[in-house]
């Protein structure tokens, strides 16, 4: 301990610890949020010099106004089929989340993570990318797979770690991998995918390919060195990579202030790297689409990386192991000034006359049935901890391409232990 008795006659220092605006029980008032008009900063040409668009890092790209109209220069002018397809994928994702949350509570798996309130991020972004572009997600972008028509029964099989799990029960539920769908294996360690994505993009560029990479992390994990290393690499090599920061305000219980939001925006991180930096209303599917398409076009034109901050709100718990009522006010979700992404897109479609409540109700029922059917099909192949899983020896496969002697010895031990435990075979 420092000897304070000899302190010189200088102002006393104090340590700042960030504090979120609201805690449990607080009245929530977001009137301090400044929400710019939809076209406050017009859409620049994609070939713009990043030095000339610093304002976009501090503003908020919006398309849907508070009357649910699509307005301004960022309006991507999507056709009805695309709008309704996005709406359906977002609804399917929400229905899937609700059911998987329930099956976790029923004990059929041990862990689940929802995307609630963030559906526009991954779904609308994937619609704005090409099918062949490579995505490096964090754990809260399963919307990529939904948007690319990945069979949802495979997701349930993975969540149950059952005999049909495409990852053979090796990964925590929701840490999917789907190479054929341009979906990189989710690590579970945070932001490690950032340098991986920029390396993939560098390889694509060095081969004269035309595919680009997109990568996601949360605002909390922008603190990791990997984030900054990747942005340096992206800037240095002009890599065709879209860096996405999903600012959902919370890293488990820690408010975004612990990642630096009290001083500046997360988009502004890009300015120091000379990368175009866009800050977008993450609950506005059209704005998300527009910003992503802007960055994708730029990357595809060999103009390098962009950084997009998707400003949103994690409407539910971090995971099934989390209880947000113990650290934040329950009013935050209902008071969030940028609303709910699915409701906003639905209202916009209705306003445009391409949708109505009857069709919405039909769709909600259909996606719920689709999810239930996938769950029932997956349950035929086992749920977590009930016998139907990949054989023990599969644990030792794929550690290396060819199994070395020490793993063969350990495999034999594991197989022997199971035979002792279940001499007549395990009962499902």
């Amino acid at each position, binding site marked *: 301990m420092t000897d304070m008795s000899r302190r010189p006659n200088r102002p006393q220092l104090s340590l700042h610890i960030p504090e979120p605006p609201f805690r449990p029980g607080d009245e929530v008032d977001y009137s301090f949020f400044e929400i710019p008009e939809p076209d406050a900063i017009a859409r620049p040409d994609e070939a713009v010099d990043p030095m000339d668009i610093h304002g976009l890092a501090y503003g908020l790209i919006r398309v849907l106004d508070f009357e649910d109209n699509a307005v301004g220069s960022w309006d991507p002018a999507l056709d009805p089929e695309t709008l309704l397809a996005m709406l359906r994928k977002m609804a399917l994702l929400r229905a899937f989340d609700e059911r998987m949350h329930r099956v976790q509570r029923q004990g059929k798996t041990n862990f689940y993570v929802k995307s609630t309130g963030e559906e526009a991020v991954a779904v609308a972004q994937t619609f704005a990318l090409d099918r062949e572009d490579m995505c490096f997600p964090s754990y809260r972008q399963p919307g990529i797979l939904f948007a690319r028509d990945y069979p949802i029964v495979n997701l349930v099989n993975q969540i149950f770690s059952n005999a049909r799990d495409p990852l053979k029960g090796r990964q925590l539920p929701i840490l999917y*991998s789907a190479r054929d769908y341009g979906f*990189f294996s989710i690590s579970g360690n945070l932001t*490690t995918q950032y340098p991986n994505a920029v390396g993939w993009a560098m390889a694509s560029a060095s*081969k004269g390919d035309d595919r680009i990479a997109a990568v996601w992390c949360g605002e909390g994990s922008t603190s990791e*060195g990997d984030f900054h290393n990747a942005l340096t690499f992206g800037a240095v090599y002009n890599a065709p990579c879209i860096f996405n920061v999903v600012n959902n305000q919370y890293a488990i219980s820690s408010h975004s202030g612990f990642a630096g939001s009290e001083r500046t925006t997360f988009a502004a991180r890009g300015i120091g790297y000379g990368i175009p930096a866009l800050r977008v209303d993450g609950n506005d599917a059209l704005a998300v689409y527009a910003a992503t398409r802007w960055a994708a076009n730029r990357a595809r034109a060999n103009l390098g990386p962009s950084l997009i901050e998707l400003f949103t709100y994690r409407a539910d718990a971090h995971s099934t192991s989390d209880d947000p009522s113990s650290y934040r006010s329950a009013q935050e979700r209902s008071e969030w000034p940028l609303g709910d992404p699915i409701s906003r897109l639905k209202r916009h479609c209705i306003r445009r006359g391409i949708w109505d409540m009857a069709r919405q109700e039909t769709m909600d029922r259909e996606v719920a049935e689709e999810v239930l059917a996938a769950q029932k099909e997956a349950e035929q192949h086992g749920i977590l901890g009930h016998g139907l899983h990949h054989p023990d020896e599969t644990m030792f496969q794929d550690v290396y391409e060819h199994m070395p002697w020490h793993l063969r010895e350990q495999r034999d031990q594991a197989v022997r232990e199971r035979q002792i435990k279940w001499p007549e075979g395990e009962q499902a």
Partner: protein
Amino acid sequence: MSTRRMTMVQALNSAMEVMMERDPDVVVLGEDVGYFGGVFRVTAGLQEKFGKTRCFDTPITECGIIGAAIGMAAYGLRPVPEIQFADYVYPGLDQIVSEAARLRHRSNGQFTCPLAIRIPFGGGIFGGQTHSQSPEALFTHMTGIKTVVPSTPRDAKGLLIAAIEDNDPVIFFEPKRCYNGPFDGYYDRPARSWADHPDGEVEEGYFRVELGQARVVREGRDMTVLAYGTMVHVAEQVIAEHRLDAELIDLRTLVPLDIETIEASVRKTGRCVIVHEATRTSGFGAELAALVQERCFYHLEAPIERVTGFDTPYPHSLEWSYFPGPIRVGEALDRVAEAEA
């Protein structure tokens, strides 16, 4: 195949040149490896010959170098990243351990990670505590990666080619004290060169030294000495000086280990000394000692001994007091040779 005299630096350079010629997906990246050719000259001429997109400099971030290389590998390239000194690898450790090592397993083979990560390691060049370390045990402890350590120019080339062709991540430790000649531990004698060493004669074109195969440097009946990297040459010198009939095994690959060669030797000799430069506690020598006693206990006639660096940071001025040189190795070999069962 025609051969020529090579230093270890030249042999490593030749390995990369051969592989870059054969396979357009092989790329070399790292700090100062491009135009300049690397601080140890191992990548000299590669950028000039193959172009800037095949061999290029990187920002100073080992996390970024390894992380980007993993992404390149996921795309389908075969990156050969250089970490300038083993002491600098730690910022890249998470990418190696959590990503490269696990990618095949966790994705059920959808994604693989064929990386050959070259890392100069070991002391004896007055590098102080940040240019001298031997952190191989950090990597052998982690499953999903292979760990390779050559001791001669010929092995360096053949092993590096095999490492680049391997479909799993390989940590390739280069004993930098042996870059320009075998080092026998006598820092106070004139430096030797590879010019008159039999393994300084190296095939010019493509050849492999398979991973997972040890090399019996010299046969013997009275004891088995297990070593790798620089310590192979120190042990060889001490065995000759002490006129011991010792069998010296250069492990060459630590994971996967050539356990058959080790077992056969110890069953024959009944005695075993393990020599490495790295710090002692939880070093790879502990793993070797455990394996030997598990598999050869009833053949042992003396306790297994480990000769290692001390459990201190690698000191600058006291480098030669730290280094497991001829006195420390010689004492251990004599003790084990003379021990009565």
